[in-house]
């Protein structure tokens, strides 16, 4: 076991590194500053993460084991495997690894929150978040037909975790062929609610130009702008989004 890892283990100080933006969210919400060794580059980028100001207080890694080692972690958080090799190599170096699954339901996210809090030594840290979740679940509004619209017309699956979050705000994501909304469909059968993502809105791409088309802003729909950044991971940060949407109605 490498010298520094054994020293740290002996001293009992926990230092956690997270290797991707979605696991960063758990860490940034639950860890104390001294416990945080590094977060991925994306969590420090305003274009990608709504927690970027918080993320900038900590060192960054490039999402791989090698760049994380420099900040001397003794616990690694990965998601969806992160490559079997990472866990194995980390183990050989005396680093503990937690691998969180890609969330298929909100329940998965809740379980992951508890798990990370436990690994940090105090499961009650997840309590505040869990409380907000149960309040949202108490009396969800009656569902209305809705579409989440990103660049180029890309949307989310009707049975995805994003759709489940939308359900908590009273929106029922429509089933779309290919997971994409077409301009004809928006004109012919506009949804009651249209959630327009502002993700990377000021950066030009053909997908962003698509959103400027008159038919992409149907007059019959109530259009609500949403911060697209938490939707990338559709993880614990979505709580804030849904609370805000519920309040807006």
């Amino acid at each position, binding site marked *: 076991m490498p010298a520094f890892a054994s020293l740290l283990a002996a001293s009992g100080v926990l230092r956690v590194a997270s290797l991707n933006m979605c696991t960063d969210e758990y860490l940034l919400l639950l860890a104390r500053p001294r416990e945080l060794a590094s977060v991925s580059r994306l969590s420090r980028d305003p274009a990608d993460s709504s927690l970027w100001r918080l993320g900038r207080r900590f060192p960054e890694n490039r999402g791989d084991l090698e760049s994380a080692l420099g900040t001397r972690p003794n616990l690694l958080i990965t998601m969806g495997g992160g490559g079997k090799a990472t866990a194995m190599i980390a183990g050989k170096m005396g680093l503990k690894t937690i691998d969180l699954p890609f969330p298929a339901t909100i329940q998965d996210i809740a379980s992951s929150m508890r798990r990370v809090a436990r690994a940090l030594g105090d499961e009650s840290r997840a309590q505040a978040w869990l409380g907000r979740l149960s309040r949202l679940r108490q009396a969800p509004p009656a569902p209305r037909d809705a579409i989440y619209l990103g660049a180029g017309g890309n949307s989310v699956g009707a049975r995805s975790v994003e759709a489940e979050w939308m359900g908590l705000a009273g929106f029922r994501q429509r089933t779309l062929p290919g997971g994409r909304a077409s301009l*004809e469909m928006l*004109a012919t059968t506009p949804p009651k609610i249209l959630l327009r993502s502002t993700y990377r809105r000021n*950066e*030009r791409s053909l*997908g962003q130009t*698509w959103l400027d088309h008159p*038919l992409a802003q149907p007059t019959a729909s109530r259009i609500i702008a949403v911060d697209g950044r938490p939707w990338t991971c559709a993880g614990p940060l979505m709580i804030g989004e849904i609370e805000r949407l519920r309040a807006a109605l």
Partner: protein
Amino acid sequence: MRAALVLGLILAAAAHLLLPLTPLREAQAIDPDLADLILVQLRLPRTLLALGYGAVLGASGAALQAAFANPLASPDISGASSGAALGAVIGGYWLGLTQPLALAACGAAGAIGTLLLLMGLAGRRADTATLLLAGLAISLAAGALTSLALALAPSPFAFYDAFDWLMGSFTDRSLVQAAAALIPAGIATVLLLRRAKALDLLALGEDVAASIGVRPGRLSVEVIALSAIAVGACVSVAGAIGFIGLVAPFLGRSLTRGHPGRAMLPAAAIGAILLALADLAVRSIHLDRPIPVGVITALIGTPLFLWLVLTMRRRLAS
């Protein structure tokens, strides 16, 4: 023949605008205004762009061929289309310009840049081999730079747009975009068409043209500038589309008994019809992935291009 062209144009325009009919009928059933909305906001820009861009490629292709005295000069082979794409990409993705007219100007600037580079490399009265080599080299370089510019652009999604920029697309364009492209392109094309007689005289040779009072140097510069503006504006909205600018003038000249300047007008009509039909073909193929319209124009154009090369060989040999 003129009547046949006009008829063909109307038929192609109608087909492109109205087909497929079913979604329009369905929309009509829901709400009469809806069909109009789809027709005007979605179908009309697409049809106007296909016809207009095709006409621009035909007219400017014929003009460039007349000015360079070479039947192989065209917006794509001369590098103008690729240069326009590069200009529009840099303007949109790097300089952050969003106004369609500003992007059209960037496209025009890119096209002018590559055409001037071609003139500098090959000279104005270059033989076919030199012209082709220089044009292709510039075209390939501009295409590669466009891909690089997209890969390094601030937006991580820019790279996936490369296909559309380098092979063309008309889907989901708005009326504003169509206007930003076609108004400057239209003005430039009209100015080109007015030079038909002078370009015909250029066929007698630069010296004879000069003695008649046509200024060959100035005429070439005008043709280059106007072609670049027209092509650049269209590319900034719909990407670079090849082969029409080569094939339409060739067919146009067959209708004007070989006169290169007079051929601009029929070439414009033929280009419009060809591009509208190519885009119609693209939309009729039902696949998950959209096929860029440039693939179809390449399929139409390559056999004709090869035939052109063979006839040129025969002509030079005799």
